[in-house]
């Protein structure tokens, strides 16, 4: 491979340089200065040099080592001035940003000890290739980004920072890392108006993304960042992951539980997977299933009647990612939902709340509206002692720290409004997707009258009628308020002063009503935990309710750490340190009262086949396995070689080393 030549000199300077070697040879011929030396006789010398004189010019040239060394030195210097360079595998640019993916999928072991180690090794190589004076920054990213090392030219600090990147079980999002990276490359602007100017000089940088590319393409303008995507992992990496694990009541027999698991094969080949189900780390069931390439498979384990416990599912496969081969689910001991019904008397609802089935999930207290003024209610409502308060045709002066259902009245909070009473509204739309109205058909429900509602902007209409929304729901500071614009049982004051009652709808005599009541308890009441398993993804927050006001809580992580919780508002704690997957225990005064599981359950992370290209801001970035070539200049080495030649010449001259 021939080198390219640059040049440090201008034309006339080159002319001078080119004239030096002939001048040097000329000087050698002229021998301007010969030292005279008197000898006894030149007799022998004449005879010695006689035949050397025959073709003396070339012989002398050929035999004069010093001249050759000097010419060589000169040529080396000229060559150095020519700035020869080769295309070499070296980093171009002088500012580098290394984005290292440390999400869950980077724990795959298809390359190196793990993909993260492979990425770290690659960044290590890149750091080695940095020229002196280059600066680099290292950012690790999963669902959030973390600056491991700000821009520095200290390779030791870079190496230390690189070494410090730990694997996580988080999902992947490149966006935040890009924002961090672009901070210096794309400086902000002073203002948005016409006079705007850049407050800082833009420092373009080369951006190296070391990832498997399994993330949502971020919508981001790269600006002065020059991206390079270095895919980590083998294209034929195989993985089978557990995508879901839950425990629910059997459809035919609610007393019996079933564990339901869904697995997905991300490989190109069908795979045989055997799954083990463990309760309290003891094998209780096992199954085997074959999953086609790219397909999902599910398995159901009948559990029988279990009170509580930790179920663990293990998929025994020989795949490249172990993190998603295990999942946990927690069946918490059933806790009765605490429900307060404030009513002057509403038999259909009272009846619906006190069936045998609802008794297993909720503890219902019925109080008259006068109760709302009592101290006991105020205290309990403020302390969040209720899961659900149903206000039947009445409204509290202040909303409680609980979910509420208001029937025929509006909550005393901003945002809620209603229109005048409407006669016989016809239900035209039911939001059956909402858990409250799941699987319900209200086509046979007639309403006598109703007040069309106008929920707040954050709210949602659940039942719409020709007159307007009849049932709506809106969030309120961590709780939800559901409001019914129609009543189940109305009261009317007759002319004689007596109170007459009338039926506001035929819903309570339809099949859907008890289902609604159950949904209500299920959705609003804490009883959900008794029936459904709780599982969150890593880093998702978990809201923990204290069993009693003022209790001190402690969370034991799967890794064995104990984290004390500071009390949030209204006796609720928000626990966010769920980066680790596994089972977390919540203790109150040393007694475990709740468990929850954190599982990966992320198809994006379980899909470990690296992408061939990634999109950043709709700009495709192709995978680059070979580093960008760069001019690798060697003039420094040439000068060093020249110095060696000079030393050699000096040595030969002084030590009379002859050819």
């Amino acid at each position: 491979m021939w080198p390219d030549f640059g040049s440090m000199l201008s034309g006339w300077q080159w002319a001078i340089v080119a004239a030096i070697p002939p001048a040097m040879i000329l000087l050698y011929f002229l021998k301007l200065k010969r030292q005279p030396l008197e000898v006894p006789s030149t007799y022998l010398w004449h005879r010695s040099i006689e035949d050397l004189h025959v073709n003396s010019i070339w012989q002398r040239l050929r035999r004069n080592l010093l001249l050759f060394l000097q010419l060589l030195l000169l040529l080396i210097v000229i060559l150095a001035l020519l700035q020869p360079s080769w295309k070499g595998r070296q980093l171009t640019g002088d500012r580098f940003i290394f984005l290292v993916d440390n999400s869950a999928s980077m724990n795959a072991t298809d390359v190196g000890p793990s993909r993260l180690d492979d990425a770290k090794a690659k960044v290590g190589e890149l750091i080695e290739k940095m020229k002196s004076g280059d600066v680099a920054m290292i950012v690790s990213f999963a669902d959030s980004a973390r600056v491991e090392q700000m821009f520095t030219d200290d390779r030791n600090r870079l190496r230390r920072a690189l070494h410090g990147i730990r694997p996580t079980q988080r999902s992947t999002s490149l966006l935040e890392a890009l924002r961090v990276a672009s901070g210096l490359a794309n400086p902000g602007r002073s203002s948005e108006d016409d006079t705007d100017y850049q407050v800082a000089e833009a420092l373009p940088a080369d951006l190296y993304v070391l990832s498997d590319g399994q993330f949502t393409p971020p919508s981001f303008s790269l600006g002065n960042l020059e991206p390079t995507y270095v895919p980590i992992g083998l294209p034929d990496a195989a993985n089978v992951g557990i995508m879901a694990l839950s425990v629910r009541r059997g459809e035919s027999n609610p007393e019996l539980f079933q564990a339901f698991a869904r697995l997905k094969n991300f490989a190109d080949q069908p795979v045989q997977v055997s799954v083990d189900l463990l309760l309290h780390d003891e094998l209780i069931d096992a199954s085997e299933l074959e999953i086609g390439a790219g397909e999902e498979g599910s398995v159901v384990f009948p559990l029988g009647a279990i009170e509580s416990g930790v179920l663990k599912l293990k998929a025994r496969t020989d795949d490249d990612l172990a993190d998603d081969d295990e999942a946990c689910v927690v069946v918490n001991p059933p806790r009765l939902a605490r429900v307060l019904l404030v009513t002057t008397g509403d038999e259909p609802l009272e009846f619906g709340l006190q069936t045998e089935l609802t008794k297993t999930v909720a503890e219902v207290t019925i109080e008259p509206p006068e109760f709302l003024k009592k101290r006991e209610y105020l205290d309990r409502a403020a302390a969040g002692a209720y899961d659900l308060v149903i206000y039947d045709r009445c409204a509290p002066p202040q909303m409680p720290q609980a979910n509420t259902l208001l029937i025929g009245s509006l909550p005393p909070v901003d945002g809620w409004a209603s229109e005048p009473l409407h006669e016989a509204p016809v239900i035209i739309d039911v939001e059956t997707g909402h858990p409250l109205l799941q699987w319900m058909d209200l086509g046979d429900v007639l309403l006598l009258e109703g007040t069309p509602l106008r929920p707040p902007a954050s709210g949602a209409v659940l039942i719409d009628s020709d007159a307007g929304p009849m049932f709506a729901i809106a969030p309120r500071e961590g709780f939800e308020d559901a409001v019914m614009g129609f009543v189940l049982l109305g009261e009317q004051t007759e002319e004689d002063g007596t109170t007459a009652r009338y039926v506001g709808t035929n819903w309570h005599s339809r099949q859907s009503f008890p289902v609604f009541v159950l949904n209500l308890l299920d959705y609003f009441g804490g009883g959900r935990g008794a029936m459904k398993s709780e599982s969150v993804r890593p880093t998702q927050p978990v809201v923990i309710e204290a069993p009693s006001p003022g209790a001190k809580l402690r969370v034991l992580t799967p890794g064995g750490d104990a984290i004390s919780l500071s009390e949030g508002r209204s006796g609720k704690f928000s626990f966010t340190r769920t980066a680790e997957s596994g089972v977390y225990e919540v203790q109150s005064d040393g007694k475990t009262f709740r468990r929850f599981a954190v599982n990966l359950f992320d198809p994006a992370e379980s899909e470990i086949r690296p992408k061939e290209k990634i999109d950043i801001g709709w700009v495709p970035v192709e995978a680059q396995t070979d580093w960008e070539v760069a001019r690798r200049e060697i003039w420094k080495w040439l000068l060093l070689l020249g110095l060696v030649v000079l030393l050699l010449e000096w040595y030969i001259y002084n030590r009379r080393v002859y050819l």
Partner: protein
Amino acid sequence: MPETSTLLSPELLARLERMELISRKIFRGRMKGERRSPRKGQSVEFADFRSYVPGDDLRFVDWNTYARLEKLFLKMFLEEEDLHFYALIDATASMDFGEPTKLQYAAQLAAALGFIGLVRGDRVKIETLGQPAGQSSPVFRGRRSMWRMLDHIEQIEPGQVISLTEGVKNFCLRNSGKGIVVLLSDLMDKSGYEAALKYLVSQDMDIYVVQVLSAEEIDPEIQGDLRLVDCEDGDLAEITVSAPLMKRYQRTLAAFVDTAREFCTRRGMAYLLARNEVPVEDLVTGYLRTRGLVR
């Protein structure tokens, strides 16, 4: 008269006293000396018997033999004579090199050999090449002449301008007698040494050629680009010292020495290469002894 000489140290003198010059030829001397002469005569060293012929001196008849054999035999004795020893020193400018200079070295050697001769009662003559044909050197004889001889040698100055052939020719013209000639020269004559040596050979003398070379000539320690100036004729030789040139010089020198040795050997001359680094004492007591010049 100095008590010691720079030429000969007392220790060397003591050692030289026990030596004697040996000639491979037996020459007729002029005076009775300590040499056997081809002339039979009166000495104590018996030589031969011969039959009596009338007229012979009856004093030499061996009467014991006559008593036994009843025949007259004459006892013949070797007559002891003196030896002519010549030292011919080359005192041209080229001999003024080296440490000690080749001339000093040659003078020292001549003094040593001359002293041996003096001690043994030989006729010793120290001459230089540059001497005109008509001017003869004094003859030294007897131990008492030692200081005179040394004085004479010390007065030899380098820088005589004469070719080797011319000098030898003049020497031969001056000295027609037989004897031992030791030529002390570097033989570096551009016109060649062969003619000069042939002159010597024709004299029928016992000839020793001692080629004196300095260390600078045998192994020159020079470097760089040089203009060599011949000290005698001012001839120039421009050289650039390099390994090939030095090798070639060594080869030339070796060839020169070998040729001279062979030339001498073929003509019955003894050749000896003397380096000025080797002390004269070692040369005389060791080397010349093995070569048979001294005993």
